[in-house]
């Protein structure tokens, strides 16, 4: 359904108990927006979606839905039970995520994939090759391939898998990792880079060990720093990926950004993910345990002392407007940053084809999240130490040189769980998990679990998903 012409505040969701599709309303209550839904059998739930400015009604980037060029399933039971993707889906893939193992070398209290050390056996190289061919046929070879898990680096044949991705013609491959192996083995980053790895999506929850102790159950900061250094030496682009948990690390947002910018251009950006409640988490959430996108945007402005401002961030051109924010910057050598995008770019709010946004986003990410193609000048001290002429704008020549290396992408993505899932959003999703049988399933639906832990998709065949 077209975001621009749909009744703006009506949508559909799922019952957290029985996973049946039910109607839902986005209800404005003062500065907050709530998803309110009622299951005839299991009653009403109210989940906070948005708190404060920039306000949700103005946070729009309307798109005309684009059916996926190849659909592996046909509509039968209706959204969200037919994913494959089916012909009712409204967006092309910009990223395909491959779960190449369910094993992990950690056992975090919070894990969307509910991974562990005693998990099922890994998919074979032949299986992964079949997935790759299927994804290439459905999506083309220009998209982001993300190898995930579990912890992908526990597989000894990860370099072979990366080579396989590249041999299939994909230009950009990223590993989603906790960084333990990258930190412990100095040669490992080089081996992955030589195999064809482009970028590392590094779990990076904070700048103190206290954050890791509470969120991951152990100290990890030294390992993270070492992993980043090893990646930078091997010219792998690094994206810091913090899971933000209210009361735990939301006050560390500014420090995380400064930490990243000090390591630009090796660190290519920060991608914030407010905690969502699927897979493994300590207990069912109440609304105080949720952090919404505008709260993160405001925290960025406050905690960077306005180095980055609320107005520097915009809704996405690829996924549904309510799913994410992004702002792109150049880290200057005088300690300042210059914003490269703003909401002004979307002021007319004219709907554009969703597929155009997906193509643009893919082009941007495959460039931005990779290491710069030219020799990297030394890291700067953005946001920390300012030089004597910090009020002076850069020369045009300096700016044009800087833009080739020191662009820095700040983004945040709100994953959906069974309490806040909005089927209008999932129908227009562009980040798809490759299921074991090769179907493509929107990330949130693939990971979604009911209140008592039953998955909607993970571990199920298409026939088992019917409502």
């Amino acid at each position, binding site marked *: 359904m077209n975001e621009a012409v749909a009744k703006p505040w009506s949508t559909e969701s799922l019952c957290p108990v029985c996973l049946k599709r039910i109607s839902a309303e986005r209800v404005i209550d003062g500065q907050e927006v709530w998803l309110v839904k009622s299951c005839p059998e299991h009653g009403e739930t109210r989940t906070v979606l948005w708190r404060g400015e920039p306000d949700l009604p103005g946070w729009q980037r309307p798109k005309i839905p684009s059916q996926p060029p190849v659909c592996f399933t046909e509509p039968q039971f209706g959204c969200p039970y037919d994913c494959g993707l089916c012909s009712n889906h409204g967006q092309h893939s910009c990223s395909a995520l491959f779960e190449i193992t369910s094993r992990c070398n950690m056992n975090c209290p919070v894990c969307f994939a509910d991974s562990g050390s005693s998990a099922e056996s890994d998919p074979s190289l032949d299986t992964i090759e079949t997935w790759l061919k299927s994804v290439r046929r459905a999506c083309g070879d220009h998209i982001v391939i993300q190898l995930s898990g579990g912890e992908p680096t526990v597989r000894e044949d990860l370099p072979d898998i990366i080579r396989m991705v590249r041999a299939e013609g994909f230009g950009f491959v990223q590993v989603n990792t906790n960084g333990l192996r990258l930190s412990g083995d100095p040669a490992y980053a080089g081996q992955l880079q030589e195999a064809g790895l482009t970028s590392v999506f590094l779990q990076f929850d904070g700048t103190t060990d206290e954050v890791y102790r509470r969120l991951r159950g152990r100290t990890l900061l030294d390992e993270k720093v070492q992993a980043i250094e090893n990646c930078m030496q091997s010219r792998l682009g690094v994206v810091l990926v913090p899971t933000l948990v209210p009361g735990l690390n939301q006050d560390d947002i500014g420090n995380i950004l400064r930490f990243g910018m000090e390591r630009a251009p090796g660190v290519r950006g920060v991608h914030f993910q407010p905690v969502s409640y699927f897979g493994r988490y300590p207990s069912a959430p109440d609304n105080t345990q949720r952090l919404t996108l505008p709260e993160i945007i405001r925290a960025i402005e406050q905690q960077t002392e306005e180095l980055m401002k609320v107005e520097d961030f915009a809704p996405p051109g690829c996924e549904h407007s309510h799913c994410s924010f992004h702002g792109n910057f150049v880290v200057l050598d005088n300690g300042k940053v210059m914003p490269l995008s*703003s909401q002004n770019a979307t002021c007319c709010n004219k709907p554009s084809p969703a597929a155009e946004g997906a193509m643009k986003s893919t082009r941007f990410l495959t460039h931005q999240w990779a290491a710069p193609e030219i020799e990297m000048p030394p890291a700067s001290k953005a946001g920390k130490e300012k030089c004597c002429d910090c009020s002076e*704008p850069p020369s045009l020549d300096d*700016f044009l040189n800087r833009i080739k290396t020191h662009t820095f992408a700040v983004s945040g993505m709100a994953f959906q769980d069974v309490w806040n899932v909005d089927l209008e959003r999932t129908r227009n999703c562009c980040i798809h998990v490759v299921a074991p049988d090769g179907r493509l399933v929107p990330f949130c639906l693939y990971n979604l679990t009911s209140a008592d832990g039953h998955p909607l998709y993970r571990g199920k065949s298409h026939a088992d998903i019917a409502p």
Partner: protein
Amino acid sequence: MKFSEEEIQNWKCETCGEGLVMRKVEFSYMKGSFHAELPACPKCGLVLITEELAMGKMAEAEKALEDK
């Protein structure tokens, strides 16, 4: 962005009749601002932006600032 003395001397401000001189100029686009040494009239301050600069580096900077 270099202009030789000879190049600058070829230009005069039509309004003031003054020969142009190199001057530090600041300009802004969207949320970016930069400076550059450009030929300008010493009397009225009018700046010469050549086609090469407008279609080259300035266009490149504009495109970067409109990223994504």
